[in-house]
C-alpha cells in the first residue's frame, strides 16, 4: 500500500537552523492498516505526513503508493489518492465558499476541471445525504458559508471532504487537537466510523496516548525524526499508557515531559 523507504527531510540545510526532521524513516503500510502515530513535539510526525502528501520534498528516500512512486510528484498530483485533515480547522476548507461548494471541490479531486457547473443539482442531493451522516444538522445549511461554522463543524466537514472519494490513504494530522474535548471525541468517533465503513488505510497523528491505543490496529512512535516503536495487532491492543511512557523513555532516551502527550 504505502511504502516509505529511507526518507530523510532536512529543514534549512547548511544554516545555523538546520534540523533533521526525518532521519532515514522506513515504513510499510498494508491495505486497511489504521496506524496511529505518536511522539513529542518535533518528533517528525507531521513532517512524515506532509512528505507523503507532497508539501515537502524529501532530501533522500522514496515513497510508493500502491506500487507507484510518488515522491517526485507535485502536491496537487498526489491529491487524487489522498484524503487529508489538518490540525488547524481553518486549513481544510475555503471559508468564503458554501458548504456544498467545498464538498464539490473535494468531489472533483483527481478530475480535470472544466466549464461544467461547480456544483450540480444531483450532487446537492448526494451531499445532503452525506452531511446527514455527520449528525450535525449541516445538511440543512448547505448554502451557508463555511466561515460561519464552528471549529468542530469545519473539521467534520473537512473529514467528509477527505473521505468523499474513498482515498487510497487518509492522512489525519492531529485533526482533533484544536477542538474542545467533547467535539474532539465526536470527530474522532466519526473518523473511526468512516475508516471502518470504507475500509480505508489511514495514518493518524495524535498527541494523545490513550487515543493512540484505543484507535487503529497499529501504533508507531517517533522521536527525533526516527520511528522508535512499531507495534500492531494484539500486542498493540494490550498496551497501556504506562507501558507506552516507559517504552518512550527507554527507546528515545528522553523523559516524557510533554503534558499534551500524556493526557487523555
Amino acid at each position, binding site marked *: 500500500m504505502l511504502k516509505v523507504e529511507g526518507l530523510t527531510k532536512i529543514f534549512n540545510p547548511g544554516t545555523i537552523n538546520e534540523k533533521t526532521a526525518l532521519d532515514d524513516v522506513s515504513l510499510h503500510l498494508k491495505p486497511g492498516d489504521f496506524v496511529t502515530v505518536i511522539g513529542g513535539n518535533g518528533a517528525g510526525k507531521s513532517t512524515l505526513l506532509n512528505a507523503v502528501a507532497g508539501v515537502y520534498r524529501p532530501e533522500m528516500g522514496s515513497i510508493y503508493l500502491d506500487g507507484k512512486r510518488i515522491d517526485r510528484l507535485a502536491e496537487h498530483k498526489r*491529491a487524487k489518492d*489522498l484524503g487529508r485533515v489538518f490540525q488547524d480547522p481553518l486549513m481544510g476548507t475555503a471559508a*468564503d465558499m458554501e458548504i456544498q461548494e467545498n464538498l464539490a*471541490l473535494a468531489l472533483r*479531486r483527481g478530475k480535470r476541471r472544466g*466549464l461544467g457547473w*461547480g456544483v450540480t443539482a444531483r450532487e446537492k442531493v448526494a451531499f445532503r445525504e452525506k452531511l446527514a451522516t455527520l449528525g450535525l444538522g449541516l445538511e440543512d445549511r448547505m448554502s451557508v458559508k463555511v466561515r460561519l461554522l464552528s471549529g468542530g463543524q469545519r473539521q467534520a466537514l473537512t473529514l467528509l471532504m477527505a473521505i468523499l472519494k474513498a482515498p487510497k490513504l487518509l492522512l489525519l494530522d492531529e485533526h482533533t487537537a484544536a477542538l474542545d474535548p467533547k467535539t474532539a471525541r465526536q470527530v474522532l468517533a466519526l473518523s473511526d466510523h468512516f475508516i471502518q465503513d470504507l475500509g480505508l488505510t489511514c495514518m493518524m497523528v495524535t498527541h494523545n496516548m490513550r487515543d493512540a491505543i484505543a484507535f487503529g490496529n497499529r501504533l508507531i512512535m517517533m522521536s527525533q525524526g526516527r520511528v522508535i516503536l512499531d507495534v500492531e495487532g494484539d500486542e498493540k491492543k494490550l498496551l497501556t499508557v504506562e507501558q507506552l511512557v516507559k517504552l518512550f523513555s527507554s527507546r528515545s532516551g528522553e523523559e516524557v515531559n510533554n503534558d499534551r502527550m500524556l493526557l487523555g
Partner: protein
Amino acid sequence: MEQILLGAVSLGLLWSIMTLGVYISYRVLDVADLTVEGSITLGAAVTARLIVTGGDPYVALVFSFLAGLGAGLVTGLLHTKLRIPALLSGILTMIALYSVNLRVMGMANISMLRMTTAYSIIGSLLGVNKTLSVIILGGAMALIIVLILYWFFGTEVGSAIRATGNNPFMVRAQGVNTDNTIILGLMLANGLVALSGGLIAQSQNYADVQMGTGSIVIGLASLIIGEVLFGKRNFLSRLLSVLFGAITYRIIIALVLRLGMPADDLKLFTAITVALALSLPRFKDLRDTLKVSMNGRKKHA
C-alpha cells in the same frame, strides 16, 4: 449639471470593466496586482494603433483584450513559476509594459480625432450623441461581462480560482494546481483591464502612455465604494456593486471638481479616500477597544 452627470455615468461604465478586473485580482484571488497600471494603457495603445492604421474599432477591442491576457500571463508566470512575490511581479510587468506601450504606439500618444470608433458607429446607427452612445455600448458591455463572470465563477474552473484566493493550501489538497488558477485569474483580470483601456481610449479619442498612472487606486476606490454602498450579499450583487461603485466614484469626482477642487489634486484626493476606506476596520477595532476599556473603568470606579 445633467451633462456632467451623464458624462460621469458614461466614464464610470467604461472604468467599471477595469474595476471588475481589479475585483478579480484583489478580492477573488487576494493579490494586489499592479500590472493593471500597465495593462490599461496597453489596451489603449493596441486599440489606438489598430484604429489609426485603419483597423475595425471592434476588432481592435478584441486585440486589446488579448494583449491584456498576455500581460496577466507574464505577471502570473513571474509570480508562480519564478516565485517572485505577487506585488513585485506586478510592478515588474507594469514597468516593462511602459516600454512595450511606447513601442506599440510608436510615440508617446496617438490621436484618433475624427476617426471611426466603436461609439461613432453606434452613434450614427442609433442617431444618438457621443455621451449616449458611450453609455449604451459601455453599459451593454459591462452588463454582459458581469453575467459572463457570474457564470464563469460558478463553473468548476471558476470555483477552483475562487477557492485559491480563499485557501490555496486546501485547494492543492483537493488536487488543483494553484499555479494555473492564479495565472488564469490574473490573465482574466488584466484582459478586462486592457479591454477597458481600449474602450476609454476610443471614448476620449486618444491614447497616452501615461494614462494608466494611478489607475489601480481608482479601481480600488471604486471597488470599496461599491462594497460599502451597495453591499455584498451574493456573488451577482457583488459584481453589480463593483459596477455601481465605479459609476459612483466618477459622480463623486465630477461633483468635487464642480465644487472647485483643482483637477491636479484629484489623485491625492483619491489616494486619501482609499487609505481611509481601507483603514476603516482598524478604526472600528480601536473604537471597540476604547468602548470596552471605558466600560471597564466605569465598573471599577
